[in-house]
């Protein structure tokens, strides 16, 4: 008899719990809670998130990335990020001009003969994704803003940052026209990929400073 009472009480509490949760959160609310309020998530560790963020941003702020995220109409190039030689321009789609496009010189791989770098989809990031001259917090805010990032979700961004051939080219940047190897980002590729995943899994929290 006593056992039955305890069981009944437990089931009642469980049902009340389920009903309460169900009525307070729609599916949407739950998604927003997960994506936008990660600070409330039980597994959130601010230090861990900040460390992953810093590691990721050290890469994204590197010239191998920023040279193709310029703030103006002209790409940057080289270790000193000078304006791209020959008056090369962005063009409407970020792939150069009608008769003088990125692919006039750049192919799907680095070219050790000419020293011209290459990777699939060689092109500039859109103007809304200009990183040049921005702080890491501004870059991250812009990158995660679906209004400016082409409607990408956190997961889309994670895939882009960790799988896209043009992004990963940064660790295989080839040699320049003099045959000198281009500088790679200061974080090894595997560590960077892990940091991106970790930061996004922890809710993609952009630190305040």
């Amino acid at each position, binding site marked *: 008899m006593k056992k039955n009472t305890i069981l009944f009480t437990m089931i009642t509490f469980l049902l009340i719990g389920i009903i309460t949760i169900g009525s307070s959160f729609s599916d949407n609310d739950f998604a927003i809670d997960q994506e936008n309020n990660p600070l409330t998530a039980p597994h959130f560790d601010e230090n861990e998130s900040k460390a992953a963020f810093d590691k990721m941003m050290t890469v994204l702020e590197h010239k191998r990335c920023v040279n193709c995220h310029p703030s103006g109409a002209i790409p940057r190039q080289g270790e000193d990020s000078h304006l791209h030689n020959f008056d*090369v321009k962005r063009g409407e789609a970020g792939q150069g*001009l009608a*008769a*003088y496009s990125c692919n006039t*010189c*750049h192919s799907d*791989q680095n*070219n050790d003969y*000419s020293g011209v770098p290459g990777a699939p989809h060689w092109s500039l990031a859109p103007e809304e994704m200009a990183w040049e001259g921005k702080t890491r917090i501004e870059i991250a805010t812009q990158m995660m803003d679906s209004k400016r990032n082409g409607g990408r979700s956190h997961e889309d961004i994670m895939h882009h940052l960790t799988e896209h051939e043009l992004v990963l080219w940064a660790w295989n940047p080839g040699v320049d026209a003099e045959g000198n190897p281009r500088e790679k980002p200061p974080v090894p590729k595997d560590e960077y990929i892990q940091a991106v995943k970790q930061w996004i899994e922890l809710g993609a929290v952009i630190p305040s400073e």
Partner: protein
Amino acid sequence: MKVSFNINGEQKTVEVSDGNSPLLWAIRDGVGLKGTKFGCGKAACGACTIHVDGNAVRSCSFPVRMAEGKEITTIEGLSNDGVLHPVQQAWMDEVVPQCGYCQPGFMMATAAMLDKIPNPTDEDIDNNIINVCRCGTYYRMRKAIHRAAELNTKKNNSESTQ
């Protein structure tokens, strides 16, 4: 490896030891067409410009493996059955070349531009034709490009009324 392509209307196969070696070498040394020039070898001067599937590319920086199955046009294939291409005619009319070394590249770049921008403004020319001429024939080239655009339009109009 073997790479096969159509060049100026003829099917050719070249044998290369490195698929990443420049298409320019295959054209000059493999096919034996010497009209396309080697200037810098670094995609900087445009002397090696040819068309691959209708687009201007700098063949010193174009891996030969990517030419497989493509349609290639060099300066030798710009005219059609002995009839000069409007760009060639305009170049003669305006007596553009000095030493001539850069000119095939400029003419191929111009022909590619006219396909996409039939009536280029001076700004279009500045933006799209950025090859290098050490003899400084730019002024005559600009005139020739406008003339080629006129001739090209006339040619296209007469073809469409035939």
